[in-house]
Each structure stands twice: as C-alpha cells, then as structure tokens.
C-alpha cells in the first residue's frame, strides 16, 4: 500500500464521487462544478502516470476553458433547478447492480488479456519535448488535418450563430 496507490485511490474517489454528484444534483450549476472537480481529479491521475504535459493541458483546456463555456451557458440561460421525476423502481433495482456488474466484468476481461505490466514513472515518454516530437514530426499530417477540422467546426459555429440578416448586421459594424 504505497503512497502512489493511496493517491491513485484518492483521485479516483474524487472522480467517481464527482461523476455521481453530477447526476444527483438538481441544479445544473452544481453539476457543472462537479464536472470541474472530475476534470481536476483526472489531471491528478495523469500526473500519477507521469504525463505532466497532458495533466497541465487538461487543466488549461478542459477545466479552464471548456467548463467555463458550460458555466457561461448555464448562467446565461438562467437554467433553474430541475424537477424531480419519479424514477422507476424496477429500473433502479435491476439497473444499478447490472451496470456495476457489467463494468467490473468488462474491466476484468480487458485487464486479464491486455498483458501490460507496471513501469516506473518517467520510463515512458511524457515530457513536452517527447510529445512535441510525436506531434510535429511523426504525426505531422494528422495534426495539420485536425487543425483544418477544427477550423471547419469554427466556421460552422459562426454560420449557425449568425443572425438571418447577416448582411444588415455586417453593415452596422
């Protein structure tokens, strides 16, 4: 029971707890904050794997930009508390144990046949220079194609969000 395992379990507990809280909360802002906690705990898990760059980028991009967007939307739409619908008792009695059993079985089968062993932290490449080597040297074409994909998504979002009289609002500016 070394320190690494304790930290892994702690971050894992925050992840799972945050995810369950996200589903259990009635007000969407609480769900968004739980999701931020999940992202932060995931960043901690990445750190435990020795992937420091990915951990930092997880915090900057996911917790610091995407979740800010989520929180903005919830604030602007003024989404109130959700109503409590009546759950189906049969579904809860059969569904929750069923889901848990299914996940445990899948995880066990995958781990049994994956053939991986533990490596010490730092043995695998994870530093920014290693990732840069992969991104900009070995996988340069997929990287550039992904950037074009994101550009298309941005253009799509701008087109979808623009007002119908696009020429009139352009003329005002």
């Amino acid at each position, binding site marked *: 029971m070394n320190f690494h395992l304790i930290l892994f379990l702690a971050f894992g507990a925050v992840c799972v707890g945050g995810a369950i809280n996200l589903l259990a909360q009635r007000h969407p*802002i*609480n769900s968004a*904050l739980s999701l*931020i906690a999940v992202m932060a705990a995931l960043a901690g898990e990445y750190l435990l794997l020795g992937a*420091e*760059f990915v951990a*930092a*980028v997880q*915090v*900057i991009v996911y*917790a*610091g*930009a995407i979740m*800010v967007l989520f*929180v*903005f939307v919830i*604030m*602007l739409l003024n989404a109130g508390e959700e109503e409590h619908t009546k759950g189906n008792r049969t579904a809860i009695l059969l569904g929750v144990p069923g889901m848990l059993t299914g996940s445990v079985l899948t995880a066990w089968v995958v781990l049994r046949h994956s053939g991986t062993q533990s490596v010490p932290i730092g043995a695998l490449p994870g*530093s*920014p220079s290693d990732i840069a080597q992969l991104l900009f040297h070995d996988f340069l074409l997929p990287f550039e194609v992904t950037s074009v994909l994101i550009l298309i998504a941005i253009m799509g979002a701008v087109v979808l969000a623009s007002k119908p009289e696009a020429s009139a609002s352009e003329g005002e500016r």
Partner: protein
Amino acid sequence: MSVGVFILVSVIKSLIVLIVLLTAVAYTVWLERKVVGHMQNRWGPTRVGPFGLLQPMADGVKLLFKEDLTPPHVYKPLFIAAPLMAVTFALTSIAVIPFGNSITIFGLSIPLQITDVNIGLLMILGVTSLGVYGVALAGWSSNSKYSLLGGLRASAQMVSYEIGLGLSLVGVIIQSGSLSLRTIVDAQGGHMPGFIPRWNIFHGQFIGFFIYLTAAYAETNRIPFDLPEAETELVAGYHTEYSAMKFASYFMAEYANMITVACVATLLFLGGWHGPLFGPALLQAVLPLLWFGAKVFGFLFLYIWVRGTLPRFRYDQLMAFGWKFLLPVAIANLVATAIAVAW
C-alpha cells in the same frame, strides 16, 4: 533528503512565501494609494503611522470587524465559495516561482522555490484559467443584474486575453527551450556584447513584453481594462453584493494576481534575479533576492502608474482590442521568434 525533512522544508518554505506574499499584497494597496494620490496631487494615506504605513493594518481590522452581510436572495453555497476560490487560485501560482538560486542551510541545499516543476509556466497558465471561476460564479450567485453583467463581462474579458497572454509566453519558451521557470531565468544570465544584460526584453522579446503587459492588465482586471469592476458603470460589478471579509478576499485575490503577474514578467522578460553582484559573501547571497524584489517592485509601480494615467476602455473596444489587435500581433511575434530561432 528524506521524505520527512523534505516535507518539513516545503511546509516552512510555503509558510514564509505565503506570509511574505500576503504582506506584499497589503503594502501594494498602500503603494497604490500613495502613488495614485501623488499623481493626483494629493497626499494619500498619511495619518495612520509614519507615511501612512500602518494603513493596511487599519484597513484589515476594519474589514474584519465589518458586518458580513449575506443578502437573502443569493445562491448561498456559491456565494460563499466564490471568494474562497478566487483567493485560493490567486495564491497558488506563487508555488512555482523561483526567487533565487539555492541556499545552503544546515548542510541542506534548498532551492529558493517551493517546487520546481518541469512545466511551471503551464501550471501558472492553468491556474490563471481557473481563476475565471471565482469571478463568474460570484457574479451569477449574487442574483443581481449588475453582478451578473459584471461577472459575465469579467469572465469574457479574462478568457479573451488569456490567449494573448499564452502566446506572448510561447515566444519566451521558444527562445529558452524549456517550460521550467528556473531554466528560463538561467538562460538570461550573462551579457550581450556591450554592457546590456541578456534579459529577454532586450534579447528579442521586446514586443512580447508589451503583449504580456497588456494581456496581464486585462487578466487582472486593472485599468485600462477594469470595466467589470468600475464603480460608475456597474455599481461594483461582480462584487456588488459582497461585504467585509469576502469583499476583502476579492481585493486580496486581485493584488495577489498582480504580484504573481509581476513575478512572472520579471522571471521571463527582466532576467529574474540576475543583477550585478558585489560586496562580501553574505551580501552576495542576499543580492539576487533584492534584485528580484526591485524588479517586481518596478513592474508593480508600472501597473500603478498606468492606473493613475489612462482612462478605461469601453467594453466593445476592450474585446475588439483583444481579438483584433493583440491576438494577431502575438501570433506575428510567435512566428518571428520561431523563424529567428530556427535560423
């Protein structure tokens, strides 16, 4: 060193840095009031202690004893959590900032930094992006028009200028080849031909410095970008409904952010703790800290100077400036730096 000694040393370092930072926050408020006062041809605080030096104590006592009012219409959990978040994120970045080389006490070589992370600069950017929550959630949880508008404006402004901030830092990273703050400062030692020190501001990142300066003013919500908390525009913006200690938390967070930004600017552009070393050995050990402090003080003085001089931007001017001017200039700076380094 063993785990126990390491933890003890880290705790002591954290306590010392935290105490110094909080004192610096209090006296930055004093400095601002004095400097802005003198710029406006008046004295600033003079009554409480010599030169008004005990004014921060008086302010602290006043804010502690003020009535901490929680209006009934707020969303309580977030109303209380938001200032805590703001202060926590503001005080976290100081953990990766190096103040000098290692010192040797009791045979242990202790670097003057709470923790030297390989990705120190990314961590500072991450904490900066998380700092948006303190402001956005305060504005929303106050359940009031002015607060919501102020909170939304402040978060939109902070998110927009984060991009310019990050890009200006990338120029420095390309030139130094590392994300670790200590390595970046070490790369600025020595002199260029002549007597000009090899600080990044003279050594190719001149434009980068000004982009960083502008983006930092916007990130910390300071004049000329302080519309979100402008008194005449939005009552008090996102902290309208806060009183006493929670209000003080926001001010602590703002000034702590200012100090962190000044420290990062010093490390990245002004050469960190490098400066002429002279005198006996004890003085030489302390001088890097003094040079660091002097440069941070200079940057803070610049902050306050700009505050006393410039009028504030209108919100649409602010956003247009960030996206249509600062971002292209930052990208051009990045491209120019990359070409220069690859040459």
